[in-house]
C-alpha cells in the first residue's frame, strides 16, 4: 500500500517523466533524475484533483487507437477540404445528439476530443447525466450513418480500453 501512496497515478508519472525529457530534448542523467523527482511529486501533490483511478486494460490498444485516429484525421481532412472549397449552398450543417455508451470520464473526454479533432464534427456539449454528447457536424447526409461511424471507429475501441469505474 505504501507503493500506492507514493505513486497515486503511475501512468501520470510515466507520462510526466516522458514529457519532461522531451521538453529538454535530452536524456542526460541529470535530467532523468530531475524529471523522475518531478514526475513523482506532481501526481502526489495533485492527487486530490484526480479522485477516480484511471485503469487502462490494454495499453497497446491505446497505441493502436492513436494510430487509427491519426489515419482518420488524414482521411477526414481531405473530405472537409473538399467541402470547404466546394459551393456553400450544398452544405447541410446541423446538430446531433450522440448517445454515449462509455461511462468512464477519461474515456468520454478522449472520445469528445477525438470527435473534435477529426474534421467535420465538433463536440459542443455533454449532458449533465453524461449520457448524451451534443455534436455539430459541417455536413449531414444521414444522421444515423454518422452516429454509427463514430461508434464503430472511436467508441468501440475506447469501450474496450477503459474499464467502467
Amino acid at each position: 500500500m505504501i507503493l500506492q501512496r507514493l505513486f497515486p497515478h503511475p501512468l501520470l508519472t510515466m507520462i510526466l517523466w516522458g514529457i519532461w525529457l522531451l521538453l529538454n530534448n535530452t536524456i542526460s542523467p541529470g535530467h532523468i533524475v530531475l524529471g523522475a523527482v518531478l514526475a513523482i511529486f506532481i501526481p502526489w501533490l495533485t492527487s486530490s484533483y484526480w479522485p477516480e483511478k484511471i485503469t487502462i486494460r490494454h495499453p497497446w490498444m491505446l497505441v493502436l487507437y492513436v494510430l487509427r485516429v491519426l489515419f482518420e484525421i488524414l482521411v477526414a481532412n481531405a473530405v472537409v477540404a473538399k467541402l470547404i472549397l466546394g459551393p456553400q449552398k450544398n452544405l447541410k450543417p446541423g446538430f446531433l445528439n450522440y448517445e454515449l455508451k462509455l461511462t468512464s470520464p477519461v474515456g468520454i473526454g478522449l472520445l469528445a476530443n477525438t470527435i473534435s479533432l477529426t474534421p467535420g464534427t465538433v463536440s459542443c456539449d455533454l449532458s449533465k447525466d453524461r449520457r448524451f454528447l451534443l455534436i455539430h457536424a459541417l455536413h449531414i447526409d444521414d444522421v444515423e450513418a454518422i452516429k454509427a461511424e463514430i461508434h464503430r471507429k472511436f467508441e468501440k475501441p475506447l469501450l474496450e480500453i477503459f474499464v467502467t469505474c
Partner: protein
Amino acid sequence: MLEWILAILILIGAFFTLVGSIGLYKLSDFYMRLHGPTKASTLGVGAILIASAIHFSFKTEGVSLHEILVTLFLFITAPVSAHLMAKAAIHIKVKQVERTRQLEK
C-alpha cells in the same frame, strides 16, 4: 531525396492551413466557421511539424523530438477550446444558418 520529402510535407501543411483559413473566411455561421481552423490546422500544422522533426534530426546532432510535444499540446488544446467556444455559443444562442438541422425532440 530528403529535400523532396521535406518539400512535399511542407507543401501539404501549407495547403491545409490555407484551406482552414479559407474556411474561416468563407463559411456562413459561427458553428461552421469553428470547423475551419480546428480541422485543417491539425493536418496542416502536423505535416509541418513532421517536416521539422525530420529536418532537425538529420541536419543536426542527435534526434529532435520537441515537435512531438508541440503536436501533443496542440491536439489536446485545440478541441478543448473549440468545445468551450461551441458551448458558449449555444448558451448565448449565436445565430445559425437557417438550414441547420435541429435536434430531434
